[in-house]
């Protein structure tokens, strides 16, 4: 650690707190503005005025909105996100039962997608303009342009229904060994890779190409270096900043954006929890999830920036 990074961290943390506050206010106002409240949504068709009133009272919704927000905020400051409006269970428990799953899925996906994306991106940068490059770039676009739910359903049909190699659903409860983990995760990870690899790959390619055009690369070539060395030892360290940013952005999708994968594979993750929370107008739950996504996003982006600084001696030794 050095001063630059500490300073950056300090700034980021301060800013992050501000951002979190802003997000919570915005999310709160949105939930407040959305038609229907938790009581109405839970009763659904059965909502008679008196039932709604009773449920509201039970859920504590008869307190004015700003007061509820303040209560939630104070709770949050003490580390307690409060009770879910609809289920009256502690939000912390709800989140705790799902966040690890989401993190696990994100981690496994990252473990596969990042190396694949980087390798493809670097390879097509090295052979830019070649057939390999064209095919890789075009198929990346093709793969993202197939709707996620189609890829997922297709994968299930082939691997689970037809071949019966993999389970159709990813039950995290039953996982005891690494083999089971891989079997359960194979399809969700495959689908998520299809979604996020393309963007990372494109950005990596662009960043590496950008560096390959720098004069120092010509110098390296004139030292007799092989193309491999040129890219890995010289271009890549300088492209770390933009690549890390691209990776961070793509990975931030893995927490909040995987709702379709969670639904199709019945994976108990946090994205679904949040979407349910929105449908149910469960303010404390939605707020807490939003905070988590926001934090994850900020952490990722900051990590990317730190990578950028570490990779750049000019910034590192200031």
């Amino acid at each position, binding site marked *: 650690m050095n001063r630059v990074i500490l300073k950056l961290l300090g700034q980021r943390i301060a800013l992050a707190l501000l951002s979190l506050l802003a997000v919570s206010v915005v999310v709160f106002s949105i939930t407040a503005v959305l038609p229907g409240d938790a009581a109405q949504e839970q009763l659904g068709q059965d909502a008679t005025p008196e039932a709604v009133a009773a449920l509201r009272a039970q859920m504590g919704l008869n307190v004015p909105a700003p007061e509820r927000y303040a209560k939630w905020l104070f709770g949050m400051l003490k580390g307690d996100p409060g009770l879910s409006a609809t289920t009256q269970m502690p939000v912390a428990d709800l989140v705790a039962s799902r966040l690890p799953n989401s993190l696990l899925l994100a981690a496994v996906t990252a473990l596969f997608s990042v190396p694949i994306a980087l390798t493809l991106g670097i390879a097509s940068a090295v052979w830019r303009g070649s057939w390999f490059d064209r095919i890789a770039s075009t198929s990346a676009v093709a793969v993202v342009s197939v709707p996620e739910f189609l890829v997922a359903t297709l994968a299930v049909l082939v691997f689970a229904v037809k071949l019966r190699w993999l389970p159709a659903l990813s039950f995290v409860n039953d996982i005891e060994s690494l083999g089971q983990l891989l079997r359960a995760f194979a399809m969700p990870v495959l689908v998520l890779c299809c979604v996020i690899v393309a963007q990372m790959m494109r950005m990596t390619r662009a960043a590496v190409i950008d560096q390959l055009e720098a004069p120092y690369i010509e110098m390296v*070539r004139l*030292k*007799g*270096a092989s193309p491999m060395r040129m890219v890995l030892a010289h271009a890549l*360290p300088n492209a770390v900043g933009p690549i890390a940013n691209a990776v961070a952005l793509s990975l931030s999708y893995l927490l909040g954006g995987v709702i379709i994968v969670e639904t199709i594979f019945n994976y108990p993750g946090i994205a679904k929890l949040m979407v349910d929370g929105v449908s149910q107008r469960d303010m404390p739950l939605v707020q807490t999830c939003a905070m988590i996504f926001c934090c994850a996003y900020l952490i990722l982006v900051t990590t990317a920036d730190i990578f950028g600084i570490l990779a750049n001696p000019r910034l590192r030794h200031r």
Partner: protein
Amino acid sequence: MGASLTVQGLCICAGTSTLVDNLSFSVQPGEVLALIGESGSGKTTTALALMGHARDGCRISGGSVRIGDTDVLALDARAQRALRGRTVAYIAQSAAASFNPSRTIMDQVVEPTVIHGLCKRAEAEAKAVQLFRELALPDPQGIGARYPHQVSGGQLQRLMAAMALIGDPDLVILDEPTTALDVTTQIEVLRAFRRVVRERRATAVYVSHDLAVVAQMADHILVLRNGGMRELNATAQILAAPADDYTKSLLAAARPVVRTSAKAANDDPELLLEVRQLSAGYGPVDAQGRPAKPILENIDLKLYRGQAIGVIGESGSGKTTLARAVAGLLKPSHGCVLFHGRELKPTLQQRERDELRRIQIVFQMADTALNPSQTIERILARPLQFYKGLRGEPLRKRIRELLDLVKLPQTVAGRLPGGLSGGQKQRVNLARALAADPDLILCDEVTSALDTVVGAAVLDLMAELRRELGVSYLFISHDLHTVRAVCDEIVVMQHGKKLAQVARADYDRGPHHPYYELLARSVPELRCGWLDEMDRAATATATIATP
């Protein structure tokens, strides 16, 4: 020990145009050949071709290059890689751009030995340190651990030389290795190069547009123009009796003619610009209003209408910073700038459009100062439209005039800056400043990338404008020669302070500030053996000083 180099019928094309046309020459082992010619004449292109390399978009279309017994152009990619960095080494035009910013210097210096598997890492490092010592680099043990941005430009040039020499190459190619340096650094680097080349008896090709420098280094000179050879002869022969007309004009222009201003002689010149107690710097400002990184300190300066003041000083002495402060790009932390007797507001936003028009700045880096996506025509048209509201035919006419003024062909009007050579870009920059009809032009190194002939033409133009329109200049340069030729007064700067101010009448009368004297002494002279004399003088002083 050096290898012989034979080039026959070398042709290099880019698309449909020919960059280098049927070039043939040879160099004996251990000799130094200089490639000279104007900017854009194909020097770098030729030098790269000697290693079998052509830049993106260019193609070696014919001819042969033999180093010793190897036909470089006939080799496959792998064999060429084996050759580069080992048999042939290259020292690039801009050292700063040629080092990877994110790896340590040592990593990069020993890389040729790693790539070619010449010796163990530890051995290579020892050898590198030895080379650092030979090249008179400070802290030879520790400098390898630094990153490129942590050493100066002159040092980088020498480190680049170490990188080239570590593989004990038979042929070294030096591409304008000193253009970016100020004279005091240049002389040190030249010394180091020469010593190393001589001691190792390597064959060398030295690329430059500076005849005076070449005169110190080369055994033979090859004059290039438009990709074709004009003359190839021994150095002394060319300096004494050039055969080709172009060589003659190069030599003629190398001795700058003095261009005086008519108005300088006036009894009652109008005070145009006055800089009072100016301090400025970069970074956040503290409570006392002092910037975190102060650069300029208490600069005083007076400039009269029609006058040209030269600002010289080593790299990083704050020359550009001074220009930026005057132009309003940098808010002074102290002091003020008066223009036509009125105080100028510290920042651009506060200044009036007419004030902005009257002071124009020509940036040091010609490439970055031109928008790569605008044609030259649009670049020049904008100030005309912006300040004068010209349009239609008058606008086009004025653009043509401006291009003529800076000696650029009309055809460049439709091109993008990417299609111009460095010297041409610099002139476009100047033309843009002229388009505003300014009273004062802040010229930041406007001739540094130009060969003598074009450089002289630009200086003539500036003198003419000064005479006829009364334009004044703040002429920033590290080249004392040029400054002496065009300026009425010279301001010497070091470490952000004004050391001395010398009027034209006193140029040749001493005594001056020792730093000024050093600068004056360090400018290479256009004759063989100047550098040897300097060396001898230096050793003499050293021997005298030591006991």
